[in-house]
């Protein structure tokens, strides 16, 4: 059958490894950091300490904050694009273009701006607003900025797609019925854009949850997110069961987000 190689490949290189992760998460840690035969929940129990719970909390918080910011910044952009007439294609291309640029390069661009010898500090010093460079890098703010910078297009595109279906006549009808701009936005535009908002939120929240490079390069050792924690277990810290357990936790969060999205999506479609 045609589908066999593809399905087989995915089973071997995607499903089976995940099964391994699940299995390893409940096995005891071996002498070199790998696993030993056995069954235990110690990897999960290891999680329940302040330091790791903080990491988890930080991950959730930053992801939510990133999503909210992306929504705040992205919605106006999507709205503007949908009303921009002949500039539409150009504006869209400009939104999509960053996605094609290496994420590593983009994150480095952020470092370049935010570090002590970076452009922002240079400018601040030059204008006399500060006397010493501000520590912008390796802060939660830097990570947040990096996340928003990285994932903003993923919010703009789905919202734009929803708004595209917005009929200008609806807005004019609302205006004729006496609705002021804010009300028009709230009662006509927003409900119609809901499916896009919901989709965009998922497309930002999930990668944010799983992000590694951004917290690694912009956050330093103090702003660890779950992704860094996991990666650490397979390099320096050498604790495969714990890394597996953390991976499962991350997958659970992603799954929860997807389920929430599916639920919200149906509700959003009804509204629109």
């Amino acid at each position, binding site marked *: *059958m*045609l*589908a066999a*190689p*593809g*399905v087989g*490949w*995915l089973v071997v*290189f*995607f*499903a*089976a490894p995940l099964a*391994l*992760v699940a299995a*390893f998460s409940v096995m005891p840690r071996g002498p070199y950091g790998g696993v030993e035969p056995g069954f235990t929940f110690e990897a999960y129990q290891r999680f329940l300490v302040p330091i790791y719970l903080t990491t988890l909390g930080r991950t959730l918080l930053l992801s939510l904050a990133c999503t909210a910011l992306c929504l705040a*910044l*992205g919605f106006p*952009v999507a*709205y*503007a694009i949908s*009303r*921009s*007439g002949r500039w539409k294609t150009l504006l869209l291309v*400009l*939104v999509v*273009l*960053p996605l*094609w*640029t*290496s994420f*590593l*390069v983009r*994150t*480095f*661009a*952020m*470092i*370049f*701006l935010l*570090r002590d*010898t*970076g*452009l922002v500090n*240079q400018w601040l010093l030059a204008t006399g607003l500060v006397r010493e460079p501000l520590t912008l890098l390796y802060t939660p703010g830097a990570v947040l900025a990096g996340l928003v*910078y990285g994932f*903003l297009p993923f919010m703009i595109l789905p919202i734009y797609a929803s708004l595209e279906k917005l009929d*200008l006549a609806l807005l004019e009808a609302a205006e004729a019925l006496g609705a002021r701009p804010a009300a028009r936005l709230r009662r006509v535009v927003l409900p119609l854009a809901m499916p896009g908002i919901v989709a965009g939120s998922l497309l930002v929240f*999930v*990668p944010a*949850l*799983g992000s*590694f490079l951004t917290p690694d390069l912009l956050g330093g050792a103090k702003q660890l997110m779950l*992704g860094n924690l*996991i*990666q650490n277990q*397979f390099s320096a810290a050498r604790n495969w069961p714990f890394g597996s357990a953390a*991976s499962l936790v*991350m997958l659970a969060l*992603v799954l929860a987000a*997807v389920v929430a999205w599916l639920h919200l999506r149906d509700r959003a479609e009804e509204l629109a």
Partner: protein
Amino acid sequence: MTGRIRPWLTASVAAVYLLLHLPVAILMAFSFNASRFSAAWTGFTLDWYRQLMDRDDLLRATGRSLFVGVTATVLATVIGTLLALALARHRIRGRRGVEALLYAPVVTPEVVAGVSLLMLFAFLRIPLGLGTIVLAHATFSLPFVVIVLLARLSGMDGSLEEAAMILGADELATFRRVTLPQLAPGVLAAALLAFTLSFDDFVITSLVAGPGSSTLPMMVYSMVRRNVDPTVNAISAIIVVVTTALVLGAERLARPERAEPAR
């Protein structure tokens, strides 16, 4: 359909666009900065680019990235095309399961995917090296290839294949003479997508790469980390220009076929 856009909307939107593009633009601009310690513009120079030429390790890493990219792309494209055809044209038992299996990698965080593959290779006692990178890249590219092709296939006319068959071409000949030429632009677009994903990848690659098989992103990462001089800017600028050109080229390829036949 250009309604009245209030000034503050325009301003904030412009600001967002600047946010999206300025950082990289600045990064690229400063690759020509004579100062080693960045941020203060002291003069124009091509020195950093010249220095790149001497970096054999970078050149080798680029070669490895290219090799991995091409190999993984071929794998993902071939397997993905077959899978897309199967999904689009035939009834499959357990279709829902296949679709879940297909879309799951897209939402799976890269760290988890990389880590899981690392453990698989350890479990199967496969030594880490370029081969494992190829396998990993092909795996995460596969769903994207299928998605792109499915979109294209759904727009394709099944009657062309039927016409071929009634003219005497069996399934294989029909595929070769009618389906494949129709599919070609889509396959090309999918392949370019897969290549770009592979070429840029860092997270998964770093987890499953063996010693001595550093790819370009891995080298760039350590350069960023160590942050010695603007050669990092230079290599970054080159990467940006090349990938953008590739993508725009792919778009061009996808465009001409839009001229719909018949009717």
